[in-house]
């Protein structure tokens, strides 16, 4: 299921012709609605939930809604991109929460003892 843009948070990357979500979307599905100057998805059915836009949005304005066959409300899968890691919070339909951390960069401090 497609990304959902929160219009109160999205600022259309301030009216730039291409907001960041449009630039990063591998399917070129995101675009700027010229009337509202907010990001919208052109075709929801083509989205394959890669979540690139969700991760990239500098205003935290995009959520990816899960397909209800996978998890109906309140199921969620939320990425959080840090500087050296990405975390995933998975909330299933019963509200159970699981969290995963993936290191993307190994810092140079690993030789220090804890």
């Amino acid at each position: 299921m497609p990304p959902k843009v929160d219009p109160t948070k999205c600022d259309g990357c301030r009216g730039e012709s291409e907001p960041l979500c449009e630039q990063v979307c591998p399917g070129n599905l995101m675009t700027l609605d010229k009337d509202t100057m907010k990001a919208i998805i052109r075709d929801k059915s083509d989205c394959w939930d890669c979540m690139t836009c969700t991760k990239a949005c500098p205003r935290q304005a995009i959520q990816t809604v899960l397909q209800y066959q996978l998890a109906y409300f309140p199921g969620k899968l939320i990425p959080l991109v840090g500087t050296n890691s990405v975390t995933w919070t998975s909330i299933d339909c019963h509200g159970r929460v699981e969290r995963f951390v993936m290191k993307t960069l190994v810092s140079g401090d690993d030789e220090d003892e804890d």
Partner: protein
Amino acid sequence: MANSIGIFVCGCRGLVSGSIDLPRMEAELAKLKKSVGARVLHPWLCSDGGRETIRESIVKKSLDCIILAGCPGNVHGELFGGLVNGAGLAAEMLLRLDIREGCAFPHRDSPDHSFRKAANLIRMWTARARLMEPFAEIRLSGHRDAVVAGGGLAGLTAALDLAEAGIRVTLIEKESFIGGNVARLNKVFPRMCDAGCGLTYLYNRIKDTGRVRLLTLSEITSLGGRAGRYEAGVVTRPRYIKEGLCSGCGRCVKACPVEAPDRFNYGLGSHRAVQAPYPMDPAGVYLINREYCPEGCEACSRACPAGAIDLTQKALETRINFGTMVVASGWSPYPVERVERFGCGVYPDVLTNMQMERLASESGPTGGRIICPGSGREARRVVFIQCAGSRDVWHQSWCSSVCCTASIKQALYLKERDPGCRVYIFYNDIRTPGDYEDLYVRAQEAGVVFIRTNPAGVSADPSGGLRITAEDTLTGRVIETVADLVVLAAGMTPAGDMMKIIEKEVVDRELLEKYGLIGSSGYHTGHRQCFPMETAAQGIYFAGCAQGPMDMGRTASSALAASGRVLKAAAVEVAVSPHIAVVDKKECDKCKRCLEECPYGVFHLDGEGFPVPDGLFCRGCHVCVGSCPRQCIVPQGFGVKQQAAMVSARIKETAPREPVVIAFMCENDAYPAALEAGRRGLEYPPNIHIIPVRCIGSVNMALIKEGISAGLDGFLLAGCRSGECHYISGSDRARERLDNLRDTLRDMMIEPERVEFLSLGIGEARIFAREAGELVKRLREIGPSPFKTAIVI
């Protein structure tokens, strides 16, 4: 990358060692392995012996980065800076870590916590030191082209100053003459000299420089580009007279059938549609005011013996590229006919103060005799009405600061010519700041009568004069007086469309208003104390009465101040601050968010579409660093990379199950407040690990996300109060970003209260201590971060 870091921990003669157990620290330091070349514990590092220890270690162990853990960075800055420099290290390779005000003092009652916090901080600073590199010097070539908009006193002063410094200046003046309103003054207070003399001197020196291109009859109609790379569209109106051919014989004027109001004399009197040049017209040839010409009339053209008249000339549009601009668009008198009760525009003998100036001038319509335009009599009774439309909510709310002195000056003109002349000044409050008070006294001594009143109205008197009705607010009596002439003190109102163009094309008016950079009056006042002369994007500076009403002395000073701002970025080669923003093009995906969030608009796009900051104007606030979703703005010294290393430096709990909090604090207001809290010994929880940053707007949200993923329990972002940020919008940006992040955290079932934004004034130590305490208390109630138990893949 520092490969041999020296960690020096100072006992500060008991101030630190009294609450932090230094011998125990030795074991902690021993745990830091990578790239650490020396670990020294010393009781008193700023003593002769301590300094020698540092110097010796640097040389013997060839250290390339030093961490001094002890007093805060503003203490002994010179002492340690000089020492490190002397030992061959760059000043930026000395990292100061405050464990005195930031650790030993506020937590002196809990030595164990205090010790652990100090150990954490040293660990964080070591992680930062590993990524430090000496600054490379950045030299850029300056912007050698400037535009000065407005050829009045401010514009001429700025243009001369810039041209003398070797800058190529385009001076744009909308009228056919230079000097603006000043050119039309009879005398200048307080010396009562002639304004034309100073202007002529200025203009002659401008010509001497040979670097000023003067465009009269020209106006800027559009303005585009960004700091350092502006482009203006300029429209030059035609004179309809060929400059090389006109000999000034004046036959065209005799032939011209229509009258046009005399702009130079503020509509007092008139001339023909074709006119002789006004005084201070640099071209010095005749000029046709085409808007008054009857259709198809070619009388002047037929009369001209030299064939100099060309009625088909067209307006010329040019585009000018420049780096910096001084806006000196000046003022125009408030249209006092709007104050209907004073009868300006109804009775010809009601004049404005500028018209009075022309009437008194020898080059004016009456040759300097004060003749009432309506009755034609010599004025023997004159009433000045102050604040006509000024300090009035229905007209303009502000005081123009010069009208009182100007009216007193004009009263003195009258008294000097004819001591028998009766002169009354009806005032609300006389405002003669500084030594202009002397003029006030002089006028009183000369017999000028001052009456405190705001007159009810001016009407025609059967005697042929004007009847003024007023209530003397000091005695409470109603007075009626008859005068030959009424002079209204019209205040100053911003002139021209330059402001509108800037607000439309360079900086949003909304933003200017939000941060108080523009007065309610529409004047670009800017931040008068911290960043005077500037309000719009960088490279555009305001001078003279475009900034606010001011007298000639202040106008000239402000023009010099504005040109000083231009010169800062105008040297042939400028060594700029090493802290300027640098975009890593390998990582950048051209999203242009930095363009939008830069409070100074210093970014432009290069040929390939990458954003590039203009280093000459970059303030180094690093708000762009905080905004970049790719974290690819990498200033030298302290950027996201170093901060991320500090956040993920495996900070440990200061006591079991105690929350770990990182506080990013703006080094201008919030951090000094925290230091002050430490200095005063105000207690706040040792859980707070403070990282001072240049502006709270420079904190990238990825750092907080990283910290949360790493299991840190809370974050505190402390910046200036909204509207007081040294970098205009930095503090508000940080708050906005944090609010957005908070919503995501809520979705993730993480308590949004874990991250908090705090606005602090520089003296608000108590508030900091209180809020920090409350945050930690709240975090204890919430419990440890769920990411402490997350599955690491």
